[in-house]
């Protein structure tokens, strides 16, 4: 994935992304905050925060929140949102999340929502999240999750890339699980859910051209004609809904025992 492509797309579409129904889904924001267990004592870092929806929701619950994102456009909208809501305990930093510029053990909680599928170097990002978290603190990821069936997964990966050029890969549940296993964290919970996305609303959450709309429509027709793929769609009130699986996973950063003084080689 071309990092410049991600930046360009999100800079260009920041205002639109901010108003997208999924970005502002209060029920999902509340659910994630509850799952993380945000408390008034928390100093929370939101990684790849976009226009700051989760950070701003959490700012009403936590002592302080910091959001970081690679897109200056997204950060500008997040800062404006914080100012409009009078949230003085929220700050937003324009930064590449592959190299989080915070001291070790800075935050009590580090969260990333709906962003890992944009990341080519997700292991580096996660290692940075753990590094910035205090021992005993919570590290949480929520993101879409790959389908189990290879054919279905391949189809929807094609669809994701057509809709959103900044999509890198939808990770599997096992991918998320292994991040925790391999990074000094104790897994506490792994929760799978299903989200029903309005397909056409999702297509419009990023700017499309006539060409991309045509390609998406052709691929959609192909999918709806195949019962294996079509089973991941549903129709309700004239809307086409896409059944998207979501993984929410959290763990605690383990406390590393200090080496006895004098130990050496």
């Amino acid at each position, binding site marked *: 994935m071309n990092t410049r492509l991600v930046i360009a797309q999100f800079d260009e579409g920041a205002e639109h992304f901010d108003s997208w129904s999924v970005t502002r889904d209060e029920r999902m924001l509340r*659910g994630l905050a*509850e799952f993380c267990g945000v408390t008034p004592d928390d100093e929370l870092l939101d990684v790849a925060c976009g226009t700051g929806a989760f950070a701003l929701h959490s700012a009403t619950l936590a002592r302080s929140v910091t959001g970081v994102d690679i897109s200056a456009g997204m950060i500008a909208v997040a800062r404006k949102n914080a100012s409009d809501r009078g949230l003085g305990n929220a700050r937003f930093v324009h930064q590449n999340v592959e190299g989080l510029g915070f001291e070790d053990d800075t935050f009590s909680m580090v969260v990333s929502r709906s962003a890992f599928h944009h990341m080519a170097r997700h292991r580096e990002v996660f290692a940075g999240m753990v590094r910035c978290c205090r021992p005993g603190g919570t590290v949480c990821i929520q993101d879409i999750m790959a389908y189990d069936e290879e054919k279905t997964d391949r189809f929807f990966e094609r669809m994701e890339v057509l809709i959103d050029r900044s999509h890198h890969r939808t990770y599997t549940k096992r991918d998320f*699980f292994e991040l925790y296993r391999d990074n000094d964290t104790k897994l506490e*919970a792994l929760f799978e*859910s299903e989200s029903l996305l309005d397909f056409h609303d999702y297509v419009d959450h990023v700017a499309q051209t006539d060409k991309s709309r045509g390609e998406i429509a052709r691929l959609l027709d192909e999918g709806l004609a195949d019962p294996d793929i079509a089973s991941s769609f549903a129709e309700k009130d004239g809307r086409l809904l896409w059944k998207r699986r979501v993984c929410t996973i959290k763990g605690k950063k383990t406390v590393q025992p200090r080496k006895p003084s004098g130990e050496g080689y």
Partner: protein
Amino acid sequence: MQTDVLEQRIRTFMQEELLVTFDDTVTADTDLFKAGVVESRDYLRIVKFLQEDLRVAMTDEDLFMNVLVSLSGIVDFVRKKQAGV
């Protein structure tokens, strides 16, 4: 713990603590999360209930398997853990 007693205890927890009403639509086999009957915070309460009240030791792989979504799934899981499977 006998199976019927175990199932009743878990059912009571879900009815009283998670406010689940079991009926013709919501049965012991219903995926309660997919059906929207309970939410992610309730998942944490189920895990806590199993660990603290039923003394079930959960491994990372247990958490990975995500079987704690229906009454019957939870009962089967606890039964297997108690049998040392």
